[in-house]
């Protein structure tokens, strides 16, 4: 066996490898990224779902912003107070500083199959955003209501959204407040509410009372009875629909008692029945 052949072969491969290695070292120095060590620490603490609920492109971007001081330590709605506390400690800040209130999504519609009037039978693509471009909108009579075709269900990464009886319903225990559903809903009827909020108005219709009644049995008719009941100035009419100010609401429930349409619901209250 000729040993020189082996030596040449090994030598050539070795030299080529060495050259490539040296060039890469030079390149690595040239393209070095100066990363704030805090970014890595904060990124470790974030949940890593990349849901975008914080308003940044993902957990990496959120960590960047927090470390740079552009976002508060409690910027992550999914991680909640625990993560906020850990991040504050990692950043060398007072953990109590970021007061955190867990928000959850809430669908402002009670137009279930039996309560909402159907204006036609829809056989097209089963997706709210596709239906929203159909002339005359979805098959429900009310143009403000939940279509019930589950764009929010698809958007939810936490299995917290479900279509029950033709209306999207949020599972408050699973909801992290990431707002993915809010962003996708073509009807814009999903909003963030404080978790455990006692009373919520389950209607978004801006129509007048008579028009609401003609399309849905569970719609706000704008009678203003609730606003007269409230002792805390926490419920007002906004363009024919009652809106609760969650800061002022004490959860006494007088508005819900008076509501003739029973669309101000209790947190632990009426569950929607199956179709």
């Amino acid at each position, binding site marked *: 066996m000729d040993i020189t052949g082996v030596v040449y*072969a090994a030598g*050539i491969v070795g030299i*080529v490898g060495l050259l*490539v290695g040296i060039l*890469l070292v030079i*390149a690595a120095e040239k*393209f070095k*990224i100066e990363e704030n060590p805090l970014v890595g620490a904060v990124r470790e603490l974030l949940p890593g779902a990349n849901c975008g609920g914080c308003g940044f492109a993902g957990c990496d971007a959120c960590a960047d912003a927090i470390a740079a001081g552009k976002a508060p330590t409690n910027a992550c709605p999914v991680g909640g107070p625990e993560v906020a506390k850990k991040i504050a400690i990692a950043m060398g800040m007072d953990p109590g500083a970021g007061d955190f209130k867990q928000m959850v999504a809430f669908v402002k519609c009670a137009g279930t199959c039996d309560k909402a009037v159907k204006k036609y039978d829809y056989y097209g*693509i089963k997706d709210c955003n596709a239906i929203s471009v159909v002339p005359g909108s979805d098959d429900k009579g009310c143009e403000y209501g939940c279509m019930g075709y589950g764009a929010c269900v698809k958007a939810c990464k936490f299995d917290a959204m479900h279509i029950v009886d033709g209306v999207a319903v949020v599972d408050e225990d699973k909801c992290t407040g990431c707002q993915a559903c809010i962003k996708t809903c073509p009807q814009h009827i999903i909003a963030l509410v404080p978790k455990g909020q006692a009373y919520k108005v389950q209607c978004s219709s801006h129509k007048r009372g008579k028009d609401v009644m003609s399309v849905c049995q569970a719609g706000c008719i704008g009678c203003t009875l609730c606003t007269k009941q409230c002792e805390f100035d926490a419920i007002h009419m906004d363009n024919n629909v009652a809106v609760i100010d969650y800061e002022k609401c004490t959860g006494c429930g007088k508005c819900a008692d008076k509501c003739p349409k029973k669309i101000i619901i209790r947190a632990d209250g009426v569950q929607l029945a199956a179709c």
Partner: protein
Amino acid sequence: MQELLLIAVGAALVNNVTLSQFLGICPFLGVSKKVETATSMGLAVLFVITLASLICSLIYDHILVPMGLEYLQTIVFILVIAGLVQFVEMFLKKSMPGLYTALGVYLPLITTNCAVLGAALTNVQEGYGLVESVVNGVGISCGFLLAISLMAGVREKIAENEGIPKSFQGSPIVLVTAGLMAIAFCGFSGLI
């Protein structure tokens, strides 16, 4: 000049690297969900293949052949390609972090993209010189860029289509599409 043009057109269309030689299928199926990332992937591959063709041709002609070590071509080519891909990765991480995250694992996987090694080996097999090698490399990678961009365009439409039978959803319909595209590319075979 005419010969170079023939090499380029032949590599890009007639012998399209993905659709008629079935090289580089991994990124072709993996990163073709969005036109934007697919095009970026194609451009990254274009950069790597062009440089790899150039460097590999130089090494082969001036080091391996004179020393009678042609049998080392695969190992040395892989070494060069791996180095180039590392370089592209560093460059993208620094200058285009968004694209870097979008390409994800498929970026380092260009190393094992057989289209790249395929280009370098074809150059040797066909006995191309330096200029011909580079032109062939550009042709091959343009073919890849074309194929992956077209595929991404089709897949964006597929994603919106709700009428696909359940058993065909996901990968099956993509593979069927790839097959149909390959058949369509057969139409170029009479070009040269």
